[in-house]
């Protein structure tokens, strides 16, 4: 299936619905200034889009809009994923004090724009589309990061994000221009074909690859392109930080998988992949993945700001997920998808509690968590502990299964990859230290007299408990999710 513009629209419904929602919000925002309806509208739009996305599974996979966009299970998975993350983020935003202060119509419109961009990121099959989608998400993100009025941290974060993102994406398109020059094409399939021909300047190709990595790297947040993230995570509004930490970097992984797998490696008849000769991208990613998880974890150890700690932990998790890419097998990719889902659940859960606490204390310092369990927030404390242990990778929580699949994919590859597995395993031990530090502060420390009682709004519980439940559920009954991720791992390549 290789469709022209108009014919493509049939398979473009989720995007169309989102676009309409965005426009509606903007338009209505001009007319009616109210507090609640933009969120509701955004929610409805996302839900509709979600339902329609599932409908696409019945469609035949193919390329849309003159091979700009690919429709396959992989892209549908990311549509569903991004929408789920967005929905959870909207629900979080509703309960957040920070978002109350901002102009809600714009906030939700921009949020949905980012989501729309992520749709394209996961389904682009063309360098141009890749760049456009990346920028679409980035531009929205810059604005949303700096969205808190009168917050120095927020504006500062936005500026850093903007400059960093600008340079990174500029570097990326510069690299892309070389790819284009060498292959004469923007289309992934054509690039792959051209690269496997003789006469390609491998050194130039490698340099181009490194340049492109900068753009992806800053989106996924891996070393050495991670430096913006702690500042941005700390400065951005918490619900958006949560969104950024799960949706944005996973979308980055999606675009990277698209680029490297159908674009820069070949699918063998056996179902395994082999990297295009001359560009040692698996080795580079291998090294980066180890460095990323190590540096992320090490930096997180001494953090006293919980959001910043979670930012570094997010870097480490990006490192874990990159393992799945670097080992170049389908188990690894499936593990990434699985990990992305459970990471979304547990990380959003963690940010949700962080948001709840900062609603009361106005800050995210670890001291604000002192004896949290004993000052009226026992259930959120337990939930946060579960999320954190899940992030560590302890059974019976979902995070364990995520790590389990990643590790098993690595171990299956065997040989020198054992080193990668050991590094990753030791990293999860290190990560326990800082996660447990929060748990320790919440449970083992006694609250001081000046610590405020933390009471939670009921609507927060309606989000918190399901997330906790899912974290446990996917830890003990993950079969369907595994099946779903395996099912989603079908690329349309032509």
């Amino acid at each position, binding site marked *: 299936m290789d469709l022209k513009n108009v014919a493509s629209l049939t398979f473009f419904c989720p995007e169309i619905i989102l676009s309409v929602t965005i426009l509606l919000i903007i338009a209505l925002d001009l007319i009616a200034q109210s507090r609640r309806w933009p969120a509701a509208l955004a929610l409805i739009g996302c839900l509709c889009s979600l339902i329609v996305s599932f409908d696409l599974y019945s469609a035949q996979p193919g390329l849309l809009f003159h091979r700009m966009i690919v429709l396959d299970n992989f892209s549908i998975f990311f549509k569903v994923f991004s929408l789920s993350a967005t929905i959870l983020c909207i629900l979080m935003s509703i309960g957040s004090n920070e978002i109350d202060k901002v102009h809600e119509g714009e906030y939700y419109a921009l949020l949905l724009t980012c989501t729309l961009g992520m749709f394209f990121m996961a389904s682009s099959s063309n360098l141009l589309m890749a760049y456009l989608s990346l920028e679409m998400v980035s531009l929205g993100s810059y604005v949303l990061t700096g969205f808190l009025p009168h917050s120095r941290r927020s504006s500062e974060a936005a*500026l*850093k994000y903007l*400059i*960093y993102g600008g*340079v*990174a994406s500029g*570097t990326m398109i510069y690299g892309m221009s070389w790819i284009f020059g060498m292959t004469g094409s923007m289309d992934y399939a054509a690039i792959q074909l051209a690269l496997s021909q003789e006469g390609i300047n*491998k*050194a130039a190709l*490698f*340099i181009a690859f*490194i*340049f492109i*990595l*900068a753009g992806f790297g800053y989106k996924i947040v891996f*070393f*050495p*392109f991670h*430096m*913006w993230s*702690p500042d941005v995570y700390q400065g951005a509004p918490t619900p958006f930080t949560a969104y950024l930490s799960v949706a944005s970097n996973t979308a980055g992984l999606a675009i990277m998988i698209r680029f490297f797998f159908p674009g820069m490696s070949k699918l063998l008849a056996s179902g395994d992949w082999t990297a295009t000769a001359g560009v*040692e991208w698996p080795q*580079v990613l291998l090294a980066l993945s180890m460095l990323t998880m190590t*540096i992320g*974890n*090490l*930096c*997180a*150890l*001494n*953090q006293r700001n919980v959001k910043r700690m979670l930012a570094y932990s997010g870097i480490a998790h990006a490192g874990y997920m990159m393992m799945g890419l670097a080992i170049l097998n389908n188990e690894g990719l499936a593990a990434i998808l699985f990990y992305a889902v459970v990471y979304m659940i547990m990380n959003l859960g963690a940010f949700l509690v962080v948001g709840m606490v900062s609603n009361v204390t106005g800050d995210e310092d670890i001291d604000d968590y002192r004896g949290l369990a004993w000052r009226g927030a026992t259930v959120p404390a337990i939930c946060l502990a579960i999320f954190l242990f899940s992030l560590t990778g302890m059974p019976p929580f979902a995070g364990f299964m995520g790590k389990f699949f990643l590790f098993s994919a690595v171990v299956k590859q065997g040989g020198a990859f054992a080193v990668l597995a050991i590094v990753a395993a030791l990293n999860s031990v*290190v990560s326990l*230290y800082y996660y447990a530090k929060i748990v320790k502060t919440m449970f083992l420390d006694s609250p001081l007299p000046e610590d405020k009682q933390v009471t939670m709004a009921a609507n927060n519980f309606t989000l918190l408990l399901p997330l906790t439940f899912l974290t446990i559920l996917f830890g003990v009954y993950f079969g369907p999710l595994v099946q779903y991720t395996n099912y989603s791992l079908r690329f349309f390549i032509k």
Partner: protein
Amino acid sequence: MENPIQTDFIRWIVFLPLLGAIVNGLLGAKIQKSLGKGAIGVIACAPVIVAFILAVNGFLTLKGLPPEKRFLIDNLYRWIDLGSLKVDMAFLIDPLSSVMILVVTGIGGLIHIYATGYMHDDKAFWRFFAYLNLFTAAMLTLVLGDSLLLLFVGWEGVGLCSYALIGFWYHDHANARAGNKAFIVNRVGDFGFVLGMFLLFWSLDAQGHASLTFREMVKWAPSIQNMSLWGWPVVTVATMFLFVGATGKSAQIPLFVWLPDAMAGPTPVSALIHAATMVTAGVYMTARMNVFFSMAPATLHLIAWVGVATAVVAATIALTQNDIKKVLAYSTVSQLGYMFIGVGVGGYAAAVFHLMTHAFFKACLFLGSGSVIHAMHHEQDMRKMGGLKQWMPITFATFFISVLAIAGFPPFAGFFSKDEILWLAFTSDHGNKAVWFFALCGAGMTAFYMFRQLFMTFYGKCRADHHTQEHLHESPAVMTMPLVVLAIGAVFVGLIGLPGVLGGSQFAHWLEPVIAGHGESHASHALEWGLMAVSVSVASFGVFVAYLMYRKESLSPDTFVNLAGGVPYRLFNAKWYLDEIYQAVLVEGTLKLARFWSAFDAYIVDGIVNGVAAVVRFVSWLNGLFDTYIIDGLVNALANVTYWAGNRFRRLQTGNINGYLYGIIIAMAAAVYVKIRYWT
């Protein structure tokens, strides 16, 4: 060998005292409160007396059987069944154990009765008898057990009870320490014992005859004759290990140091455990394993010399002691030395015979001393006694008889048994003249210090303070009756083991099914008479010297004290400084080692763990600075270069965000460099 005869009464010999121990141990406090101490005494003594009757029954049953069938067994159940290791919970009466149980229950029973009088004023009366009964049960297990492992059970059990009884008056730390010392020193011996047991078991196993049952082990002993370990014959190594066990339990050099301290316990305990029964367990064990020991001449040689050394060293120490019980304690060590001389020269029967006679007279001596101590209000220093015979005639008489027995004057028991050992040392294949000579010297010293004790305690003027003198009295009948019985034994029991010239030993003959044909010698009668005369005259000489010093007081002890600059005296009096050496080297050494390793654990091992954590945290701290300072610093340096290149001498301009961007550039450059340098 025929199968032993199955019976089911032997178990009760063990169980009855055990029952007494359990009843008194769990309910004793209540019984004592409600029914009085008499009830406790009955509960404690009755099982032992009944056990004695059963033991006699066993003895008579054996006697009614032809010698080769003299094995009664009582098999309760299979205790351990693992692979080739099959051990039954089974009790065995054969000629050897029949002698032992008669001694244990007989003398033990008398001591129980005696103790009801001796301990009458103690509040923890019930506890004492619970321990004492438990001890009896353990000792009976030791001698009745039909396998080496069961023997070891009793072996450890008596050690435990000995510990408990030495530290019976635990309010005083010294007593508790003495108990500890006894236990731990014994553990050192046990360590050797188990290794010997393992070695024998696996050697037999290698020959396909794995067993720990005595009868089986003895049967297959020849099969391991030619095996070797570490360049030694297996039997030699194994018997050496076993002998290490014996040195612990039977207080031989180098492990005898605990026994004198063990006198901290109540005197009946000293009599029962530290004279008559437990300390002789080592002798019993070697006799039990005599087949193996006989296969290991090197071990026997060692045993003989250790025995001699112990006999002489302990005797020299005994010469100088003033504590009435300490003298007896060292005398016990010395006498145990004689028993091991007997073993060492291959005279197992003689050793067991001496064990038995010694049980009588030494128990009598201890109980006599207990009677004295009782009368003297727990005064034990002989220098504060004297002339006691006028107040305590029965005690004196029995004590005197026992002293004659231990000094080796015919026709008292000690004469026959000790002389048998000396005779064997002189004549047997394993013996030699040097051993005999030193043993003879020891015998002379024995006579001296025993009479010294007798004179200091019962003769002369009473040196006790006025108050004590007023209350001096003969002990009650419950205490003197056992003394009389034991004294009678000390007189006559020797007659069952007459020397060859007088018709040969009934006793050795009785033991023959177990200890067959060892230690016999075929020297002339004239030599035998001659040696008897020598030993009696040496003993007489010892008595004469003691008489001169402590009765007539015409010869001052100081003559000897100052001999050779007083060095020997000080050496003897300080127990050859062995306690001090052990304390300094072994105890302190172990403690130092413990403290060292503990510190090692706390600082090094744990330090490494914490160190790893610290390093990780340090690295992370560095990393935290990484973003702020390192990258920045690097960046600043790089910026300098950039500026210099652009001829722009300005102040450094890089801010944080610029630094981040440098990260990108550096990383990409590095990747490209690596690629070009290493991959192509």
